[in-house]
């Protein structure tokens, strides 16, 4: 009994001392810094009841956010976030970004993007696709070459569903010459297609040093379950 009381007193004293002086400030700072922000989540029913198409976007290490389809213009999907950023996409390819710290201004040669022929005309994907990108910060005309690999079966988990999909991997090479040592000249983009041919997920990077954008098309997945 005495041991319990002494232990409680010591524990209480330790906790009380932690609330005093600068230690409390240290504790609060670490608590904020190390706390993990939660991803935005929607249930299958919420997605089905949504009047607007939605997708889940995880940019880099940030928590995932839900973006909504604002406009469908000229076969381009224009998705917006609650903080007023916009992703302009053509057949799943990010063609332009607005509102990010570094934006993609232009993507050239998009008529020959193999994504436009996937997955129905998979034979066309073997060709090499060369395009140029313009980025904010006076970075213009960076050439990027890419090639798609053979599709492989995979499973996507979203909205508490397991969806059979075909995964296409795009291997990209940054072709711009540099006067300094450059790493990360090559990277991969991933595209998952459902059996009905809908693109349901992708992971893309706009340039070698940009943050990846993991996109899950929730509304399309919800429609698959209907």
């Amino acid at each position, binding site marked *: 009994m005495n041991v319990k009381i002494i232990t409680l007193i010591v524990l209480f004293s330790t906790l009380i001392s932690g609330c005093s002086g600068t230690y409390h400030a*240290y504790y609060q*700072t670490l608590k904020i810094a190390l706390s993990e922000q939660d991803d935005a989540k929607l249930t299958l029913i919420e997605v089905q009841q949504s009047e*607007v*198409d939605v997708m889940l976007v995880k940019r880099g290490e940030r928590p995932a956010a839900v973006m909504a*389809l604002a406009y469908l213009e000229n076969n381009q999907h*224009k998705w917006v*976030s*609650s903080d007023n950023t916009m992703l302009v996409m053509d057949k799943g390819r990010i063609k332009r970004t607005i509102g*990010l710290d570094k934006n993609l201004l232009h993507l050239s040669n998009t008529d020959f993007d193999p994504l436009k022929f996937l997955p129905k005309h998979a034979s066309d994907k073997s060709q090499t696709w060369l395009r140029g990108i313009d980025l904010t910060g006076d970075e213009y005309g960076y050439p990027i070459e890419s090639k798609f690999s053979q599709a492989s079966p995979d499973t996507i988990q979203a909205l508490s569903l397991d969806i059979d999909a075909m995964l296409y991997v795009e291997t990209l090479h940054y072709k711009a010459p540099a006067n300094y040592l450059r790493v990360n000249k090559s990277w991969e983009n991933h595209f998952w297609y459902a059996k009905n041919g809908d693109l349901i997920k992708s992971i893309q990077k706009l340039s070698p040093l940009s943050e990846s954008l993991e996109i899950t098309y929730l509304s399309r997945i919800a429609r698959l379950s*209907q």
Partner: protein
Amino acid sequence: MKKILIAATAALCFAGNLSAVETAGGAAATTTAVGTITAPIVVGAAVGLGVVGAVVSNNRGSTTSVEPGPGPGPGPGPVDPTCNGSDPLVDGVCTGTTTTVTVSGTGTTTVPVTFTYMPTT
């Protein structure tokens, strides 16, 4: 009957297509969106190192106490107040007495008059 079946089939086809049609929300779509994709990333390791540095810095720091310098030293000390002559000092005030002499036809009248003044220190 055949027309009704055709119409029903067409309606079902349209319904099927509608379910696959993507819906755009226009400018109001931002109200449907949740979360941000431009939030700054807090690097926990950097903050942790900063806090550790702050703890170490605080522990190594010393407090310099500033002692008050020497004062002007003891003064000449209090001086007893004094009054003129034998005037009494009452409650810090000296009380003096003077005599006023008034000469009239019937005689001479002498009247004592008191006055006060501050003592010298």
